[in-house]
């Protein structure tokens, strides 16, 4: 039985806003950041109204409450991705910081000159640049698993690259441009066969697909709350506990230490070891509420709903003429990046905005991928649980207006 998703739209106050007179917001940029349901806003508001205090050190009531709320959020995140324990979840600022944490702690300790890191051509800059910094700093090497013209990873090339014995394989579970869903489990198993560690950029998969990290068996998984109905300023890094335990700390300061003397310090236990300073407490509470919200709908259902809209949108865009959508044509996430010949994405996005339609224009932090596809920029429409086929119809109408203006 399929769920009626139209009822969820009203959970998001911003979606009833008019952005221009008579033009209601039609939000098609959830890949960049999602909107927040009222219950997430309420949870954060309630935290500040009733429980606000610094965590972990206070013995008074509200500090204990704040600590409990913060740690409960960690447990919710762990359950959401089927992690074995909350101790495997480090709170960070976002996916970017999670990946940087791995590069600068695990990477600095374990990667040496000439060690190979495998990435894919569809990565977001946040899973390229941290490793390029290690190329500069430690002379490691990077090779890229190619993307085939239809947006799928070249698995034969991957298998060949594995023969070069990489130390780490790091890749996105879902592309934020092509919508490609990568075969994470198969890729992880293959990487493990040559002794490589696996990091998955889950920025687009954790919000949109059911993810069971123990089943995938990757060592690390990075994601952001703001892309899954939660607030900005908080994200998570899942790591296998033994690895996290052996990794050097990331930032130094309060909370991450066990003991400090004038001579030196010893580190706190995982995950506190990686959470120096006062964390984003209200945001953690909001993150937990977002996870409750998504779980109440069901990730299987959300994935199915988005896939339906994506395939409908793909068909409508291609039928409308003069538009080329990049990425796979069968199984894909709710992301449609496209090129309108002769019309720059900035102009497309600007004219759509006049109809209240929010899409993104540019290279979407995946410049190497755009170079590969020979496009300096694309226009991107992306969907979440609060979008509908009617939103796609509005997009098509808006694009007709764009074509008319440039005709």
């Amino acid at each position, binding site marked *: 039985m399929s769920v009626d998703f139209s009822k969820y739209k009203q959970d998001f106050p911003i979606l009833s806003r008019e952005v221009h007179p008579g033009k209601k917001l039609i939000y098609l940029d959830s890949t960049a950041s999602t909107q927040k349901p009222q219950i997430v806003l309420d949870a954060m508001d309630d935290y500040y109204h009733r429980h606000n205090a610094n965590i972990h050190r206070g013995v008074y009531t509200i500090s204990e409450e704040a600590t409990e709320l913060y740690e409960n959020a960690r447990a919710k995140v762990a359950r959401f991705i089927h992690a074995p324990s909350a101790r495997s979840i480090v709170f960070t600022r976002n996916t970017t910081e999670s990946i940087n944490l791995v590069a600068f702690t695990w990477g600095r300790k374990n990667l040496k000159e000439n060690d190979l890191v495998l990435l894919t051509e569809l990565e977001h800059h946040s899973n390229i640049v941290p490793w390029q910094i290690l190329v500069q700093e430690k002379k490691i090497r990077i090779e890229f698993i190619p993307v085939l013209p239809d947006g799928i990873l070249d698995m034969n090339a991957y298998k060949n690259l594995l023969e070069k014995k990489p130390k780490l394989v790091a890749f996105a579970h879902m592309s934020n441009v092509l919508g490609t869903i990568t075969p994470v489990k198969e890729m992880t198993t293959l990487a493990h066969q040559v002794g490589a560690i696996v990091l998955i950029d889950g920025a687009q998969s954790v919000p949109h697909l059911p993810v069971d990290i123990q089943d995938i068996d990757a060592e690390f998984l990075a994601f952001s709350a703001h892309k899954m109905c939660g607030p900005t300023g908080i994200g998570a890094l899942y790591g296998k506990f033994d690895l996290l335990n052996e990794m050097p700390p990331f930032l130094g300061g309060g909370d991450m230490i066990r003991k400090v003397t004038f001579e030196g310090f010893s580190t706190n236990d995982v995950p506190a070891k990686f959470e120096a300073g006062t964390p984003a407490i209200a945001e953690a509470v909001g993150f937990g509420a977002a996870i409750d919200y998504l779980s109440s709908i069901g990730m299987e259902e959300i994935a199915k709903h988005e896939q339906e809209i994506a395939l409908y949108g793909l068909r409508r865009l291609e039928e409308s003429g003069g538009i080329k959508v990049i990425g796979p044509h069968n199984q894909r996430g709710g992301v449609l990046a496209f090129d309108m010949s002769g019309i*720059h*994405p*900035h*102009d497309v996005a*600007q*004219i759509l905005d*006049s109809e209240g339609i929010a899409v993104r*224009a*540019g*290279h979407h932090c995946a*410049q190497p991928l*755009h170079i590969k596809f020979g496009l*300096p*920029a694309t226009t991107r429409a992306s969907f979440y649980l609060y979008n509908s086929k009617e939103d796609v119809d509005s997009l098509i109408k808006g694009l007709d207006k764009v074509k008319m*203006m*440039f005709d």
Partner: protein
Amino acid sequence: MDDLYREIIIEHYKNPGFRGELDPNDYTYEDENPVCGDHIRVDIRVNDSGIVTEAKYSGHGCAISQASADLLMEAIIGKKVEDVKKLTKQDVLDLLGIELGAVRLKCALLPLKVVKAGVYGVGKESELSDLD
């Protein structure tokens, strides 16, 4: 909105008068907008009295950046290089005849940034700070 895509902008975008490259040239420079990847190159020739005699632009970008480049080339031809250095953000907006939000402002100003970096020479980025 329909203001933003005024006839003049669409016209200069679709039928540019100053697209191309000049080789040899007296000043050449190129740069891009890191947010959207728009890329503009400008080539300029000047005569012995320091007056711009020819100016061309190339590259790719949105209608606003391309129309701005085309209008700017037209505007600097016949001007002294010293006067080109004095052109401001407002001069470009006057050429385009539109109001722009922060993001699109960068599109509109990229051509002037490139022109100024060209005539000032690399290393004088401080002269361009008002265009950021």
